[in-house]
């Protein structure tokens, strides 16, 4: 088996498929591949992540619930809404039923509410499937959605790659290397030290494993 480019699988003696691609599409595809990653504009975090989150990728985050660490995600969303042309639409799906969002807090952290949609769902891949198929939302966040299976991750990663989105899966607990995820481009654990008011970030998968300590006020 040989691999040609991205996605073609052919037998060893088979000829490379003869596909003619119009020049216009080629340049567009090239532009997409070379599209710069989505930055957070927090310089330490961006350099830690190699520039930001890649378009077409799935990332998995361990953000223990009740530590205020979701604030870490918002700079990426702000950047998507304000740095992209046209401004990206963002979908935030949350899976806890006793809570609701506090829009003033989101707005105060720089989010444009007009281009953000929320959805409560514990089965988003069933209930919100049309949204994952459409590509309308460039950034999708799944926060605290229970029971995502390998098939679900495979589907999400495929859609993110196909539609050049970025999908973030946020877990309300710490990730471990014992339960890996081949579909996620990066896996990150975060924790908060309340006594020193800083946030620790550990990269489990993606670039080389390493840690970063950031003052919490960098995010708010």
């Amino acid at each position: 088996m040989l691999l040609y480019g991205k996605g073609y699988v052919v037998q060893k003696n088979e000829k490379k498929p003869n596909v003619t691609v119009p020049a216009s599409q080629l340049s567009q595809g090239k532009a997409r591949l070379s599209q710069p990653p989505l930055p957070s504009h927090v310089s330490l975090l961006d350099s830690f992540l190699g520039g930001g989150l890649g378009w077409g990728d799935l990332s998995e985050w361990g953000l223990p619930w009740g530590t205020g660490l979701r604030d870490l995600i918002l700079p990426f969303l702000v950047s998507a809404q304000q740095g992209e042309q046209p401004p990206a639409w963002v979908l935030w799906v949350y899976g806890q039923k006793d809570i609701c969002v506090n829009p003033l807090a989101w707005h105060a952290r720089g989010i444009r509410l007009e281009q953000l949609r929320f959805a409560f769902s514990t089965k988003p891949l069933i209930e919100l499937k049309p949204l994952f198929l459409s590509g309308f939302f460039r950034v999708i966040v799944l926060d605290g959605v229970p029971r995502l299976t390998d098939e679900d991750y495979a589907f999400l990663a495929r859609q993110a790659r196909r539609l050049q989105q970025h999908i973030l899966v946020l877990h309300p607990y710490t990730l471990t290397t014992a339960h890996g995820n081949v579909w996620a481009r990066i896996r990150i654990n975060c924790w908060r030290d309340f006594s020193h008011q800083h946030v620790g970030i550990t990269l489990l998968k993606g670039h080389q494993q390493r840690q970063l300590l950031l003052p919490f006020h960098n995010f708010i």
Partner: protein
Amino acid sequence: MHKLLSFPDFTRNLQSPQQDRFLALQWPASPAEAKQLGHSLSPEVMHWAEDVWLIDLASCQVYWQSQAQTRRMSFHQLLLGHLDEICGVSSYRAVLGDHPWQALLLLPCLAQQNYFGLINRHSSMGDNLLQGLSWDDWWQACTRYAEHSPGEGSRVELQKRRRPMQLAMRRLGCSTPHHLKKMPPEQIRRRFGAFLGDLWSLTWQPPSPPLLPNSAAPMLFPWQSEVQGADLCVRRTLDAPARDWDVLETYLRDDLNHFPLLSSFKKGERILALEWKIVLYNLQELPVSILFRHPHSLQHDYPQQRTALLQISFALQKALQQQRLSEFEDPCFWIVSWELRITQKLQPPPRQLTLFNEGESSAWEELLNLENQLPAPLEAYALRDDWVPEDSFARAGQETIAPPQPEHVTSLNSLGRSRPLYMQKKAYPLFRPGQSLLWKFRERTMEKWWIRPGQTAVRDYYEVLCDQQLLWVARESAGHFLVLGVYG
């Protein structure tokens, strides 16, 4: 305990009833043209008098409001532009109101002032105009009301009670109904009967409109919908009983694609509701009602019909679940035939307008189409000019939202930065506050004591680390600690 229970629900603002739901339109055009104009705005239209039409915008209000938002104008401006374009600037009078009766009463007041155009009943102009309402116009509206009411009872009662009330008003020296505005409806009811008492109540204190947008006619109003021409219907009888969605989907797609080919289907029509009447193998009929969140174009979705098929599958699952619950012993889900009928639709207007630009592809259209494919709507929020957490936002698209004034933005943002991203839907008491580790004072705000008497006047907010969770806690003047939110 009373204090704890009286703490407001954080989702209170999301449950507010629809406002500006009814449009009363006086337009001296042909009935067919006026009816078509009404049906281009909503499927619920009533012919009130010779040239007066009532339009219940409930089922399409979100659609029009979001369209107004994308055009960066208010719902009122959008509607005004539409009516000006189609009726001509100085040829119609229209009133928007929460209740049809109040909207209708204002029409003769507009005529009295020789005013053309659209006004809102709740604007100061609407209030002023209603003060000039004459008794003649009020009685004429009452007569129409009685004519539209079912049975003879209302007409007989009006005939019987009208003269005594007219005499009493003359004796009291009340030249307009406004002079008696403060008269409680109970007193009118006691002296002049229930019919006039109800209408008096509607004139000055109409009941709140229902919370659900698709709920039918408002309370205390004899609503009679105009029929939207013949229902479009497609019938199918299967060769073999079927229950698999894959099989049903293929046939249903054909049926949906068949609608635009029918001669009675007009180009540009958008559907709002379908009825799928299934006949099961035991010949039992099972009606399945399919509602669309926004007006949906079958022509735009041709030939996949993805949106309609998704909504049909959601509705079928729901209907089958109910069927299972009601007939547990002998469930029979094999389908042998059906009738698919369009029950509600938006018709194209009498003339092609910019508002109904078919084929216009925008992010807004795409988003509405996506929302139509979901079993539940997406949540969209807008800010209000308010510092109290539970009042600081509302659902996006509501006409009555007052956005933060520029001079308030900085202080609201500063408040917002210290507040958590997630709130508890219902606040709960913080148990064992003394055992919490980290306390940080965040803000002190005043309650709206002038609106909600009995509530404590000052609230202090803290960040509290309790059981490894950072909570947002409020302390009321009485000393109770309530958990309002969680820093996610």
